């Protein structure tokens, strides 16, 4: 497993201030001026009929580490990590992953907003798509994790990465990547949709004052429950939940079906 490789501005700013106070745009510009965040990758978002409806700006997860170092007053280290983030964002695998995520979100109206704020929701669905997408995700996630190892030893943070293996009475049992076990309250996982067997996650504990700890939980790549709805262009999905506009169009069509001339062929009898 590995860290979720793509993050949004919002997710980066949350490392600076979990309550996201102040103007996000101004705060992010300040980080950029200090050189402690990378440029990221910008992509247009398509609306209906091919028109543009805006753009999305996505970043390497290493930016979260850079901003944490900046918050701890270690700007020189933060700038080095931001440069690592820039190198990662320029790699073909990262760019390909962003393009796939944008195409995935573009095709599902309800995901377009998620992509800009919480891209991990799209990443998790993409992970369930097929093997090649999972391989790409893991390769980009692993590249980020390798870069992290260089400076993590110096950080004063406790970290856990693993999978949910059981949930009982509002406590989730986690099997970590080192094989040890840990328990987490499900309240930490519910709003992220990680309260399910097989979900991959990372949890970080950062002591900011004696007895005062910031706990961050994030979805990771490498879930064990990648059972998708087996959707493909050839196999009928059991159930399709269309967008509201598609549903309205379907209802209109039902009221006005297209006449089709009958075909004079013998078809098998239906039982």
């Amino acid at each position: 497993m590995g860290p979720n490789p793509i993050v949004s501005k919002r997710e980066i700013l949350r490392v600076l201030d979990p309550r996201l106070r102040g103007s996000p745009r101004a705060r992010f510009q300040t980080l950029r001026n200090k050189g402690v965040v990378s440029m990221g990758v910008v992509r247009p978002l398509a609306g209906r009929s091919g028109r543009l409806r805006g753009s999305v700006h996505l970043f390497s997860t290493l930016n979260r580490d850079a901003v944490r170092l900046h918050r701890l007053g270690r700007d020189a280290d933060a700038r080095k990590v931001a440069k690592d983030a820039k190198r990662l964002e320029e790699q073909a695998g990262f760019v390909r992953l962003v393009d796939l995520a944008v195409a995935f979100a573009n095709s599902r109206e309800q995901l377009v907003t998620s992509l800009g704020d919480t891209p991990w929701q799209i990443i998790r669905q993409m992970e369930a798509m097929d093997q090649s997408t999972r391989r790409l995700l893991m390769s980009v996630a692993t590249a980020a994790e390798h870069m992290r190892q260089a400076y993590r030893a110096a950080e004063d943070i406790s970290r856990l990465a693993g999978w949910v293996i059981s949930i009982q009475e509002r406590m989730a049992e986690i099997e970590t990547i080192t094989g040890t076990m840990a328990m987490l309250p499900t309240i930490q996982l519910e709003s992220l949709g990680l309260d399910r067997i097989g979900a991959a996650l990372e949890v970080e504990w950062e002591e900011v004052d004696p007895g005062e700890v910031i706990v961050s939980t994030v979805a990771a790549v490498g879930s064990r429950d990648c059972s998708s709805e087996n959707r493909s262009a050839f196999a009928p999905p059991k159930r399709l939940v269309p967008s509201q506009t598609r549903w309205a169009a379907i209802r209109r069509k039902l009221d006005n079906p297209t006449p089709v001339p009958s075909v004079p062929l013998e078809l098998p009898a239906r039982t």
Partner: protein
Amino acid sequence: MNQADLLAVTAQGFTTIADPGDPDSSRNDIPASFLGCIAIRKDCQGLTLADGTRLSSLVVRSAIQDALTIPGRSSLVAGYVAEENSRSRSLCRREGFDEDLPAELLPSSYLDQPAPYVFVIGAFAVTTGQSKRPARRTKSVER
């Protein structure tokens, strides 16, 4: 049947279309047919019957008719067409399917990575009338 006699293959299945306003309930679910595959032998693509009907139209209409004869199905027929397959998309539009753009990324059995597919859907009612296209003298299928 000899393989030489096989002109086209279609495959259709069943799906349910749920109400996005109430996705957890099946109250408003619509049972629909799903066209998984429509394929015409390469040397027969583009052919027209003696009465002017395109072979491709005949194949699609057969699939639709087959799907609609199954009890419990609504008049809805849906499917996915590869975004780059302009001929098939044109065929679907001609036969009464609407496209829902933009294309979606779906796993592809042919490629090693997801590919963009356009969702197409139509509602149909099989009639007993003949095609109104005028007869044309073009390549015809005689078996």
